[in-house]
C-alpha cells in the first residue's frame, strides 16, 4: 500500500463518495422530475397553472422522490446485472474455462475476498471489467479477445487488477456512476426531445396562446429555465465523472495487482499487448467506458493524456510498473 493510506481508508472513501452520489442523484432527479411534470402540465394544459396549488406540487415532488429512490435502489442492488447485460457478458462455468476460473480464484484468495463469478464478453477487442456493490456481490468480465491472447501469468495480472477494484469498493462507485449518470443522460435526452416537440406545437398555436393570457406564460418561463439548467448541466455531469473516476485509481489497481501476485511481469505483459490493440469494443459506450481495464473507445485511448480521459495512457501505466522492476 502507498504510504499512509491503507486500503481500509480507500474503502471508506469509496463508500462515502457512493453515498454522496446516491444522495446527489436523488435530490437532482426529484427536482428534475418535479420540474419536468410541471412543465408537461404547463404545455399540455396552459390553464392548469393558473390554478397553481402547492399541495399539487408537493404530491408531484413526493412521487418524483419515490421514483428516484427506486432508481437508486435498483442501481445499487441490480446495477451489476444491468451493466453485465448491456456489455453483452454471459456467465461461464468452471468447466468452460478451468484456467480462467482458477486464476480468478487464486487472486481472490490473495486478496482475501470470496471468488467472484466470471463472465465472458464475446468480442475480439481486448478488455475486462469488474462490477458489483461489494466483494460479496461482485463479478468480473473479460472479452474473448483478451482471454485468448494472454498467457496464464498475464491473465493473473489482469484479474488481480480487477480484484483490486473489487476489494477497494471502486466497483460500487463505478457501477453507481454508470447507472445513475446514464439515467440522468436518458432523462435529459427525453426532455430535450420534448422541448423540440413543444417548440413546434407552440409556434403552431401561438395565436391561440396570445388570447389565453398569463397562465401559459408561466409554463413557457418554466420550460425556458429548465432548458437553461440542462444546457449547463451536461458539462457538469462530465466533470463529476472526471472527479470521481480519478486516474489515480487505475495506477493504484495496477500496483495492487503486483502486490497481490508478487509478479510485476504478468500485468506488464498484458498492458504491452493491449498497447498494440486497435480493435474497438462495440458494447462499450461513454457511460460505461470508465469501468474497463483500458479505455475501450480507441479514439479516446489515443488521446489518453487529455484531462477529459477516463483512463491514464497505457504507456504511462507501463512506465510506472517498470519502476517496480528495479
Amino acid at each position, binding site marked *: 500500500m502507498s504510504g499512509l493510506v491503507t486500503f481500509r481508508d480507500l474503502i471508506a472513501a469509496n463508500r462515502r463518495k457512493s453515498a454522496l452520489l446516491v444522495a446527489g442523484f436523488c435530490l437532482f432527479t426529484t427536482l428534475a422530475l418535479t420540474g419536468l411534470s410541471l412543465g408537461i402540465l404547463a404545455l399540455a394544459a396552459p390553464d392548469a397553472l393558473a390554478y397553481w396549488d402547492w399541495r399539487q406540487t408537493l404530491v408531484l415532488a413526493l412521487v418524483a422522490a419515490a421514483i428516484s429512490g427506486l432508481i437508486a435502489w435498483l442501481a445499487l442492488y441490480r446495477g451489476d446485472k444491468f451493466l453485465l447485460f448491456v456489455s453483452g457478458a454471459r456467465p461461464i462455468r468452471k468447466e468452460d474455462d*478451468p484456467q480462467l476460473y482458477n486464476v480468478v480464484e487464486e487472486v481472490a484468495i490473495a486478496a482475501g475476498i470470496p471468488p467472484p463469478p466470471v463472465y465472458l464478453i464475446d468480442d475480439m477487442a481486448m478488455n475486462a471489467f469488474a462490477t458489483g456493490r461489494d466483494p460479496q456481490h461482485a463479478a468480473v468480465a473479460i472479452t474473448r479477445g483478451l482471454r485468448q491472447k494472454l498467457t496464464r501469468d498475464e491473465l493473473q495480472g489482469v484479474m488481480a487488477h480487477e480484484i483490486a477494484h473489487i476489494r477497494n469498493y471502486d466497483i460500487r462507485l463505478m457501477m453507481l456512476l454508470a447507472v445513475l449518470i446514464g439515467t440522468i443522460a436518458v432523462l435529459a435526452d427525453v426532455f430535450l426531445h420534448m422541448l423540440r416537440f413543444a417548440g413546434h406545437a407552440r409556434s403552431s398555436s401561438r395565436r391561440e396562446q396570445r388570447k389565453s393570457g398569463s397562465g401559459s406564460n408561466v409554463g413557457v418561463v418554466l420550460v425556458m429555465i429548465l432548458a437553461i439548467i440542462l444546457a449547463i448541466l451536461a458539462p457538469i455531469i462530465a466533470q463529476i465523472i472526471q472527479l470521481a473516476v480519478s486516474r489515480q485509481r487505475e495506477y493504484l489497481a495496477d500496483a495492487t495487482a503486483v502486490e497481490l501476485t508478487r509478479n510485476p511481469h504478468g500485468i506488464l505483459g498484458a498492458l504491452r499487448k493491449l498497447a498494440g490493440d486497435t480493435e474497438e469494443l462495440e458494447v462499450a459506450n461513454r457511460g460505461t467506458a470508465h469501468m474497463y481495464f483500458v479505455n475501450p473507445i480507441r479514439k479516446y485511448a489515443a488521446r489518453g493524456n487529455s484531462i477529459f480521459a477516463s483512463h491514464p495512457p497505457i504507456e504511462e501505466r507501463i512506465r510506472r510498473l517498470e519502476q517496480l522492476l528495479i
Partner: protein
Amino acid sequence: MLVAMTWLPWVIGIGAIVLVVLYVISIYNGLVHRQTEAENAWSQIDVQLKRRHDLIPNLVETVKGYAAHEKETLERVIQARNAAVNARGVAQLAEAENALTAALRQLMVVVEAYPDLKANENFRGLQEELTSTENRISFARQHYNDVVAQYNIALRRFPSNIIAGMFRFPPYDFFQLDAQEVAQVRQAPKVQF
C-alpha cells in the same frame, strides 16, 4: 437553579463513562474482527493444502500410465502426500508440506521427458489444477501473513494494546517459509501453456 447545578457533574460523569465504555467496545470489536480474519486466513491455507492432497492420487495414476519407469519418483510423491495428510501440529505440517512440494516439483521435472503424457488432455487438466493449487497455497499463506501483521500491529499499538492485554488476545505467528524453500520459490520455473 441550584438543583440543576448539583445534577450537572453527574450528567458529565456518566456521559464520560458511557463514552469510554463505547470506545473500549469499539476497540475490542476491532480486535475480534482482525483475529477472526486471521483465523479464516489460516483455515483457507488448510483448505488449499487439502485440495492438493486430493489432487495427488489422480495425478499419480495418470502419470503411471505413461511413465511407469518413474516408480521411485511416484513413490516419493505418494509417501510425502501420506505424511502430509497425517501430519499433526504446525511445525510437523510445515515440514511435511515442504517435502511434498519438493517431491511434486521433482515429478514435474521428470514428466518433461514424456511428450505423450504432456499431450494427454487429462494430464494437462491435472497440471493446470496443480499449478493453480500451488498458487493458491502460496497466496493463502501470503494473505494469512498480511492479516496477522495487521492484527499483531493492533496488539502492540496504543491504546488497543491496553484492551488486548486486558482480554488476553494472543499474538499470532507468521507462516514462515524455510530458507531453502525461499530460494526455490525465487527461482521456481513458471508453468506456461
